[in-house]
């Protein structure tokens, strides 16, 4: 019976639950779905062909992030800065709503969002990626692939990226000043230092007044707007509210408060996953 109401009258169905202050999946309004994180490194698990990787499962949403490093020449205006290029892919694998073909508008918007988060938070010092000023720098490609789409991919992407970056090591490269030849030392690896850990929290606005944190796909479809707040624990790195129903100052504050709460949660999760040696790629894909 409940399933029929859910499909036929989803709004009515949600309204009934929200009147009681809970959601159909037993969550409170400000509660995130259970999050499982698997961080890999070259010596660890996850993706061993990547310099750093992470797989995150947020409820039923699964995102995998792989970081690859390449060498390139820096721009002439910024000779000491490397590059960090994020790319989000919403492939046809993850949902029947996405068709095979060139990246959709939504995927491009997400890529830009992730790029903005990286730029605004400055969590990776681009100068750390410099090998020889004006000659050679690292380019880090952060590719995020959504494997299962059940809402709130933005938060999953940011967490996967932060987790993967926090565990990325690059081989040490030296450039011979005289000959200009490069030498790569694969035995000696240097970890990337993050200056901060940006974490995002998205809320969906339901019927112009209720704020649902970490919306599922159905909640996203029903919502009248989304708000995303990215924090690094102390500062707000990015705030995004692309149109939708207007919000009061107080509600905006609630979103920000929730983002700070989420930051503590997520940071604990990252530290825990780094400590555990059990993690294999199968674990987040298997546990339900």
């Amino acid at each position, binding site marked *: 019976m409940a399933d029929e109401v859910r499909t036929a009258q989803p709004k009515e169905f949600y309204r009934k639950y929200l009147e009681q202050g809970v959601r159909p999946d037993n969550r409170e309004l400000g509660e995130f779905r259970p999050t499982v994180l698997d961080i890999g490194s070259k010596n660890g698990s996850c993706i061993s062909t990547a310099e750093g990787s992470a797989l995150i499962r947020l409820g039923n949403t699964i995102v995998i992030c*792989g970081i690859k490093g390449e060498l390139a020449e820096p721009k002439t205006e910024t000779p000491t800065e490397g590059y960090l290029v994020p790319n989000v892919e919403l492939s046809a*694998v993850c949902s029947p709503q996405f068709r095979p073909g060139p990246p959709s508008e939504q995927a491009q918007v997400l890529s830009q969002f992730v790029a903005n988060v990286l730029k605004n938070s400055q969590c990776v010092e681009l100068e750390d990626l410099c090998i020889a000023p004006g000659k050679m720098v690292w380019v880090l490609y952060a590719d995020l692939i959504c494997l299962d789409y059940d809402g709130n991919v933005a938060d999953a992407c940011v967490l996967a990226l932060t987790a993967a970056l926090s565990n990325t090591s690059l081989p040490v490269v030296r450039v011979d000043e005289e000959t200009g030849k490069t030498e790569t030392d694969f035995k000696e690896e240097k970890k990337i230092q993050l200056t901060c850990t940006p974490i995002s929290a998205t809320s969906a606005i339901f019927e112009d007044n209720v704020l649902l944190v970490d919306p599922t796909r159905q909640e996203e479809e029903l919502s009248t707007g989304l708000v995303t707040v990215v924090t690094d624990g102390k500062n707000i790195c990015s705030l995004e509210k692309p149109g939708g129903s207007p919000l009061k100052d107080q509600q905006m504050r609630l979103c920000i408060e929730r983002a700070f709460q989420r930051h503590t949660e997520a940071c604990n999760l990252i530290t825990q996953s780094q400590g555990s040696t059990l993690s294999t790629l*199968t674990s987040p894909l298997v546990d339900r």
Partner: protein
Amino acid sequence: MAGVELLSDQGFRIDGRRPHELRKIECRLGVFRQADGSAYIEQGNTKVLAAVYGPHEVRGGRGKALHDKVVVNCQYSMATFSTGERKRRPRGDRKSQEMTMHLQQTFDATILTTLYPRSQIDIFVEVLQADGGNYCASVNAATLALIDAGIPLKDYVCASSAGFVRDTALVDMNHLEESSGGTELIIATLPKSQQIVFLEMNSRLHEDNLSAVMDRAVAGCTDVYNVLDTAVRDHVGETAAAIGGDAA
């Protein structure tokens, strides 16, 4: 002979396997919620995901619909971080297109296509980490995903590869063995009827040796079949237990 020795005098391969041994296979059915069927497989360091959608209405123009059988639509894609050097394009390059075609032909021959006229079945394969035997892992993953989706098949399709080094046939080649430039024979079979649905061989091989290599590859397929069948039975058992029925 190449710089590395692919088969030692003691009869061990570069990763410590004997010539007839497969890499370790780990697989799991039903990993995603959105897809109608999905599976994840690890064959050694090769990790592949497959998702199946359908049968559903034909998308992208009615002209594609076939009046007497289902359209099997495949997409093979490799994550940009799956290989040693970063891949520029995850799909659409010539090699991926070829792989897509091969998968399509393999499953066209295996799915009972006449049961769903004027419909479409999508098979999406994503390689997360590549270490040789990508086609084989893709086929095995897609088979599991199709079974998970409940799509009628003639039989499991199991794929394996074999090479020929120092007068010995090696089954289930890894990336290093593949890239050494020797013979590689890739085969996909229907294990119960021992029929071959797909066969590809590159590089030269003396005719006398062909049967040895073929036999080894077919034996590999049978071994793969046993692993996949156990996984499917376990999965069905778990699912049945979860909904309160008796496990088969």
